[in-house]
């Protein structure tokens, strides 16, 4: 996670004045927050910040350069390019995407299991 504004430290200590009912509701959440901060000290920022949302908006992003791709395809005729690593989803600049890496258009798809072999 990248740099963000520091969370207000006063939040963690100000709950003495609340009544019992609220205390029971708030303390578990604060305890959980403390646990999280202990595990990830750099997590000082507000989660609703732009980075978090930007990640959400960029779902599905794969890096693809058609020029590189076509060059690689041409070269592939002569030698085998290294295939994608264990994480097929991570097709970034260094690795030239090959036809195997890109999602295949599944033209002959199996019928949904909901529609066949019903178990009543």
């Amino acid at each position: 996670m990248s740099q963000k504004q520091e969370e207000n430290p006063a939040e963690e200590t100000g709950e003495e004045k609340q009544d019992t009912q609220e205390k029971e509701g708030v303390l578990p959440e604060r305890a959980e927050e403390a646990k999280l901060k202990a595990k990830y000290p750099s997590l000082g920022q507000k989660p609703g910040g732009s980075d978090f949302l930007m990640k959400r908006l960029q779902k599905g992003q794969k890096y693809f350069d058609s020029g590189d791709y076509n060059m690689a395809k041409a070269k592939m005729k002569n030698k085998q390019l290294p295939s994608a690593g264990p994480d097929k989803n991570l097709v970034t600049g260094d690795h030239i995407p090959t036809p195997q890496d890109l999602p295949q258009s599944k033209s002959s798809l199996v019928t949904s299991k909901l529609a066949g072999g019903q178990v009543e």
Partner: protein
Amino acid sequence: MAGAGGGNDIQWCFSQVKGAVDDDVAEADIISTVEFNHSGELLATGDKGGRVVIFQQEQENKIQSHSRGEYNVYSTFQSHEPEFDYLKSLEIEEKINKIRWLPQKNAAQFLLSTNDKTIKLWKISERDKRPEGYNLKEEDGRYRDPTTVTTLRVPVFRPMDLMVEASPRRIFANAHTYHINSISINSDYETYLSADDLRINLWHLEITDRSFNIVDIKPANMEELTEVITAAEFHPNSCNTFVYSSSKGTIRLCDMRASALCDRHSKLFEEPEDPSNRSFFSEIISSISDVKFSHSGRYMMTRDYLSVKIWDLNMEDRPVETYQVHEYLRSKLCSLYENDCIFDKFECCWNGSDSVVMTGSYNNFFRMFDRNTKRDITLEASRENNKPRTVLKPRKVCASGKRKKDEISVDSLDFNKKILHTAWHPKENIIAVATTNNLYIFQDKVN
């Protein structure tokens, strides 16, 4: 009939379960949406593989009056295919995010299905007759030699085995930069809205090359982005009114008569939060994952991570009812954040008379809240209870301390077994509950 009893007065019984038994779930089989049509006769499901399966309730057998008609497969088709946007380097999933039925106008049925980017209008029609007795063709389709034709006859329609065909009638594409999360058909039955993370568009069902942008919350500078649209719905009766919910827990009601671009809301529904209660998780768990108007149109229901809230459209400053779905998770937020479960988007639904609401939880549990009796019940969708007409036993989660017999402790809950999608028949006490890859149908006990 429907909703006559409360959530607890009704005895829910197992009716049917659809889908594979094995635990090894293929990604494509993950159910992503469930929706009854307006009469309740048809039940549609969409999955991650882009497929739609429609079930039809069989006509009630007058002799066997101890159960309502079963749902059997009526039609299945591939709605969306995976795509790759080379220009933006984006993989476009074929997962069906939402299905919405159009009210029936003629013999055919119509539904809208959408993935992240494209909405499609599908026509589902029946064919139970075919023409026979052509003069120039044999029955198998081969053309006859015209010189062998010595007499003329008039082809006639003869009955054939029922064939249900699905065909895409309209494709509404290229209107969304971000991922579509909602579609909603207007009560005028001519227009509908589609909402993505930052924008809402208005379409006419007949026109695919144009849509009007009615909400745009994209900031000029994306660094200033603080909230996104999470769900949107048209009012069931007022064709000019719609609502949209946000990741910050607010709901905005907009009136399309006020201006062409509804960036300024007519009403803002937000429950005030005590600032001293705020934690790292506050905003995340306040994010609204679903918003649904009541059938009456007087209320709307929102689902956030831990609760279901009912709002009176006349009161913006707080909900009129709040129901805790799984409050015991509040002390597990750290691990739920780590395993991403805190971002799960649960849906919610009303029964036909707006007296009971339902939503899903983990461990294949689902919850119902009776608004009149204020009683709630937790049930489980599991193949262990799958004898027809077996009454489901209520479940209980033990938050802390001594676990009673038959209770399950919070730490034993299976967070991979989530019920995100549920649907309630519009008229009867029949519910459809989707686990990861199975569809359960439950009914109330009919004596």
